[in-house]
């Protein structure tokens, strides 16, 4: 780390986490996150208005905590980066307004960045500069995308994405069917370790015909319904539901499709690095199977540690720092929050 590398503060509020990160160059200095997840648990999913209210109240304390951890003051910050989209409109707006308030008060440039590109860029903080091109598999409660990334600051190409539920959403819904708490991902991961994979749940969009039309797309809605039907049939026959086995078989169906298509994309596009990001990247079976299949294919797997995979401010700061160091043009003070920002747009103008 050298002191003349730019210090970038990143703000992330696309869903229910208020994240503020500080990055100098590619060095992570602080990653403060406040989550309103507990406030959403009784609703079984994120309630946008509850999340937005929590962002407002968490913003200044989280900025303060990030600065204290990094041992810097706001006046030391060289540029501000913020998630401009995609995400929940009301939540994005709180972060974007906060970022503009900082830019205005400190007289610093602002970069409104794409949340998905930030999920890819964050890996630089742990594993060094991103190889170009990189393949990226992003899986969370809000997205499931396969991206070809020739340049994370300017050129992100979507190869495929979910056509219905996001992978993390399927975890939440299946957890509910199995009587496990929200959010479902960590609970399914935990109980699945005690289970045996012997139920053959469907692998969405992997049939011959689908592999033509939806080669790199995903579908988890049919899988979710198949699990529910299986469980209901068991309950109807008066037999106990083998929760661990169902969780393990469901999880295997998800990670099998994710990794199979990700590796196919690497092979077909001649890319030898795969980054996995998003909250579902914390899933232990996804990590293990991806490692196995990458090893077989001669692809280098890069998965940031779980704290960097879930939504956080560090990822936004990481992409912001890369935009600054590559001399990309900052956005105007009037830049919009865009809840459906296309993945091809890395930063807002």
């Amino acid at each position, binding site marked *: 780390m050298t002191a003349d590398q730019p210090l970038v503060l990143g703000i992330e509020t696309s869903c229910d986490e208020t994240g503020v990160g500080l990055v100098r160059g590619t060095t992570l200095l602080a990653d403060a996150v406040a989550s309103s997840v507990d406030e959403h648990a009784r609703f079984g999913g994120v309630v946008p208005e509850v999340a937005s209210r929590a962002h407002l109240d968490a913003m200044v304390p989280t900025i303060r905590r990030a600065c204290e951890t990094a041992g810097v003051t706001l006046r030391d910050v060289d540029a501000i980066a913020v998630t401009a989209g995609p995400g929940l409109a009301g939540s994005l707006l709180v972060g*974007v307004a906060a970022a503009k308030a900082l830019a205005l*008060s400190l007289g610093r440039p602002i970069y409104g960045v794409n949340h998905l590109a930030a999920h890819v860029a964050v890996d630089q903080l742990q594993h060094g500069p991103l190889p170009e091109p990189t393949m990226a598999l992003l899986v969370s409660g809000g997205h499931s995308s396969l991206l070809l990334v020739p340049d994370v600051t300017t050129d992100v190409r979507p190869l495929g994405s979910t056509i219905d539920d996001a992978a993390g959403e399927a975890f939440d819904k299946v957890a509910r069917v199995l009587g496990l708490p929200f959010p479902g991902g960590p609970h399914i991961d935990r109980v699945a370790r005690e289970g045996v994979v012997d139920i053959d749940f469907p692998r969405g969009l992997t049939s011959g015909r689908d592999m033509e039309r939806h080669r790199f797309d995903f579908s988890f809605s049919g899988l979710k319904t198949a699990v529910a039907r299986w469980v209901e049939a068991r309950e109807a026959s008066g037999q106990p539901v083998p929760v661990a086995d169902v969780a393990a078989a469901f999880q295997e169906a998800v990670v099998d499709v994710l990794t199979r298509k990700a590796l196919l994309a690497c092979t077909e596009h001649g890319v030898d690095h795969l980054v996995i990001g998003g909250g579902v990247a914390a899933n232990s079976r996804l990590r293990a199977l991806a490692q196995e299949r990458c090893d077989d294919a001669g692809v280098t797997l890069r998965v940031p540690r779980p704290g960097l995979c879930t939504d956080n401010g560090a990822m936004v700061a990481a992409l912001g720092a890369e935009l600054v160091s590559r001399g990309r043009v900052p956005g105007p003070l009037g830049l*919009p929050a865009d809840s459906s920002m296309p993945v091809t747009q890395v930063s807002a103008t």
Partner: protein
Amino acid sequence: MRLLAFDTASAAITAALHDGTTVLAEATEIGAQAHGELLAPTIDRVLRVAGVGVGDLTHLVVGVGPGPFTGLRVGLVTARVMAEALGIPAYGVCSLDAVAAEAVGSGTVDGPFAVATDARRKEVYLAAYDADGGRRTGPDVLHPGDVDPAVAAGPVVGAGAWLYPGTFADPREPRLVTGGWLATYAVRLLAAGEPLRDTAPMYLRRPDAVESAARKRVTQP
């Protein structure tokens, strides 16, 4: 004193700079869905017109509503973060009080009156004031039909009064908050040594959210 005031609790995005004696600059944009885009450039413009650097600011004042939540939060988070970055205090003012101050100050009312703003969903935010602009009741969120008939029959300022002519017989100006009067009202309170609110929002409504019931079956029982 270099006091910057702004409000995003209505369709107006409005900001003004006050030096303790007079309003140095003021700007208002109308854009019901664009508070997030318009506020920072509007503040920037007011500072430039007033010839005041952001580092010279001494006080921040923000309208805390009541108002539609999404736009309202843009103003509140802006005030809180600017206060943190600049190391100056941020105060809150009920947005309806600023409308009331303008009605009294500009002479559109000369006795007791009410302020009604658009709360959407066929409701209004409503507060009642005495002739000097002191708030007597409210703010509340109400269906126009539930407003006290004595209040509805008298002079009512604010966009809400103009939206429901069947309820409000005597609508008056102004219709929206203006940064200049928000600043003037806050300066007056500060000069009188009266306590100002913090920047906690006046939501008046709970979030729309339904607690999840038992899981839905996918197969018919």
